[in-house]
């Protein structure tokens, strides 16, 4: 595995640019062999108003790769674990399918894979990242909503964006320290 010292991976998302085209969802499905009907990433739609005063917003979502991931804390076998660079993973071999982590995750980012009897989730495409690549969802996005990078590197795009733009995170009150930053 590549050197993961002094790295903290995160995603910055500019949801305003999201057109709900699902490219990220299919790219993830193809890249990671996610079964039909299951999703490692998804787009939450919010629609409000009455004709003709209407609004719609779209938020791409996936595992937050939290700073303090509750899924890892509750895992009885250590199958859910976190790398030094912040990426939260599930080790299939150690997963007993108890699904505590699914309950503990405030973001509903995990799903159960019936075919393997394990819990699965976004890996931030660690296998691509470790070869110097970027996650499939980030790469494929037509409107370039997602920006991937290292928060420990002050010159990275994610650091620059967070230093210059206002943003929010989802459900900060959980104390999980989510690492998906949504630009305002």
């Amino acid at each position, binding site marked *: 595995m590549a050197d993961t010292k002094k790295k903290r991976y995160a995603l910055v998302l500019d949801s305003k640019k999201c057109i709900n085209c699902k490219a990220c969802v299919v790219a993830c499905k193809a890249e990671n062999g996610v079964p039909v009907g299951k999703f490692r990433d998804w787009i939450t739609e919010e629609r409000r108003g009455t004709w003709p005063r209407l609004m719609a917003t779209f938020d791409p979502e996936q595992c937050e790769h939290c700073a303090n991931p509750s899924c890892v804390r509750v895992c009885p076998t250590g199958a859910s674990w976190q790398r030094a660079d912040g990426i939260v993973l599930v080790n299939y071999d150690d997963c007993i399918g108890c699904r505590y982590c699914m309950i503990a995750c405030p973001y509903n980012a995990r799903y159960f894979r019936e075919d393997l009897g394990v819990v699965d989730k976004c890996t931030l495409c660690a296998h691509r990242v470790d070869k110097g690549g970027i996650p499939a969802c980030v*790469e494929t996005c037509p409107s370039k909503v997602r920006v991937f990078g290292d928060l420990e590197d002050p010159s990275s795009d994610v650091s620059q964006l967070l230093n210059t733009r206002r943003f929010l995170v989802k459900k900060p009150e959980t104390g999980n320290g989510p690492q998906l930053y949504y630009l305002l």
Partner: protein
Amino acid sequence: MEGNRIDRRKFLQVTAAGAAATALVTQTGCLKYFEKGGGAPAPAPLVVPTACELCPNKCSVLAVVEGGVIRKLNPNPENPKSRGMLCARGNAAVKQVYDPDRLKQPLIRAGERGEGKWRAASWDEAWDYTAKKLSEIKQKYGPEGTLWASTEGFQEIFFRNLGSAFGSPNIVRHPTLCLASVNLAYSATFGTVPSFDLLNAEYVIMSGANRFESIITPDTMDLIGSAMNRKTKLVYLDPRFTVTASKADHWYPIRPGTDMAFILAMLNVIIGEGRYDKEFVATYTTGFDKLSDHVRQYTPDWAEKETEIPARDIVHIAREFADAAPRAVYYAGRRSSWYKNDFQMRRAQAILNAVVGNWDREGGMVPNAKIAMGEYLFLPWDDPKAARVDELDKNFPLAAKGDGVYLKLRENVLAGKPYPVKGWMVYKQDPMNALPDQGMTLKMIQQMDFVGVIDIGMSDTAWYADVVFPESAYLERTDPVEAMPGIWPAVVFRQQVVKPVHDTKPNLEIVQGLAKRLNLSDYFDYTMDQWVDAQAKDLPVDNPLAYLKKHGVLGIAEPKFGGTLKPDHRFVTKSGKIELFSERLQESGFDALPVYKPPVQPPAGRFRMVLGRKGYFTHANQTNNPWLNEFYPENDLSINPQPAQNLGIKTGDMLEVSSGAGTVRLKARVTEEIRPDCVFMLHGYGKKSKWQKLVYGVGASDAVVLETAWDEVSGNAAFHETFVNVRKA
């Protein structure tokens, strides 16, 4: 989740300690996890550049192949049009190759048409049978007794050439189901069809061109970037609240079919207040005085009554548009098959663009640049002896002759006039779903002595055919090089990524097999390699073919503006100028300036059916792709809560939707996001073909209820002219 900036560093400290400890214990497990699925140590993945075929955008793709199997399709950022993206459809193309229900060998019908009884045939048998049938028809009715229908694709040319070499004048293509009216209107005005520089435009008006759901490269990406960064103002007119509406600065749910009134009123304001580009108009256009007189009648107050857009807003938009020019465009859109006046509505747009002088300027409308390519010189054939069955010369003198006019053609074939057409060959097209009034298309199939289909899947049309030839999926074949004109022109190359999984062939070989049996081999005496060599050899790079194989695309990233802005530049029009007033239209018996005629509105209790796409569906076959189908497994009828309440309709209720063409049943989706006088359904459901497993009999096909109507100048289908009755089933 409001505004709290969390203390990232604090969290990181905690995590770093915790995670490091965990990492020590389980890293081996992790390694195992990543090695899983590959099985034996796999060789380094092969990356093959190619070009997507899921929609007309032809985006550049990097196919990752492991052990002879396509693992993933990634975007190729070298393409200046697709700009490093691959959409949901493009990503899902892997499933086309490994679809268990795709066509795997030639099939000959064994039962009644549409019964779904087939027998597997050898290629020789399928070719022999088809050639025999076509020859019989030729003997009885002449070569004009055959019809050759196809949709754009890199190998489409071979199919059309076969029809022409066979001697048939009846080659019909998809444009009159798509963008014929916009092409003709801009050609009539500027002598060419330009692109729109949405990367640099500061003011964009769109009539129904739902660019954030109907993805067009690079327009969709350019516009979302510039609009969301507040650089560009977007005004959007659409009877539906689409994704584009949700991103627009101003959205007007215009009364359907009245867009031309809005445009003419804008012209009224811009000309009346002297806000047009006087120098440009004087130098490059003709007919301005006539235009000026003509639009005086179209006041904003008048347009408000037609469009339901407030007059003061029309005035305001017109002023802002003129002020932003030349970085202002009234965007043409792509599928422009809406209303019977579609050509004239697009003409009005073109004229509006012309008078503000946005022509050939950064942020405006730009004539397309093109990278010059060579071509393979094949043996030419004699011109067909018979005239076209759609009587194009008589009915649509300005329409593109090579494309034909589909709906008029169907009408004439069904009437058997001016002569019988009894053989129908179809390539890469599903007329059963692409044309309105499926019942009529089915009748057209039934009156044929022979129907042969070349496709990758069992479409509804293939389902009713006599012979089905399985074409290889795009990832399994090498295609001709394709030039893509634009502001950022490119040449793309689709090369074979994997060997065909089943007993399928590229279209060229299917055509050559038929040509041989029809004694037409002399016209097809080349290989794909020879064809590609001839195209590539003059490209402006060293070792062009090697370059294309390595990169998959040759693009020009630096646009050029203003090449035509010389006072002596001759536009390809009759006058050599930009024609605000068109003598050519007048001579052909059409309005030389766009004259507004109010559209018929639905009578009380009926609804206008409008169409549109999602970002993950373009063509009717894509609803059967499992990676796309799951976003919308069953289509439904969008209806506004107000009429829904009157009819006692709730979301999920089964409805009966009927028109003069047919009746379908589908579920209701009661939504605020559509005008109360319109209903909407997605395309590509309610399939007849049982091999389209996910959508066979699921939801409804829009083609069943759409009535036949067309634009009088271009012959483009008018898909928004159908009124339907809706009731609980």
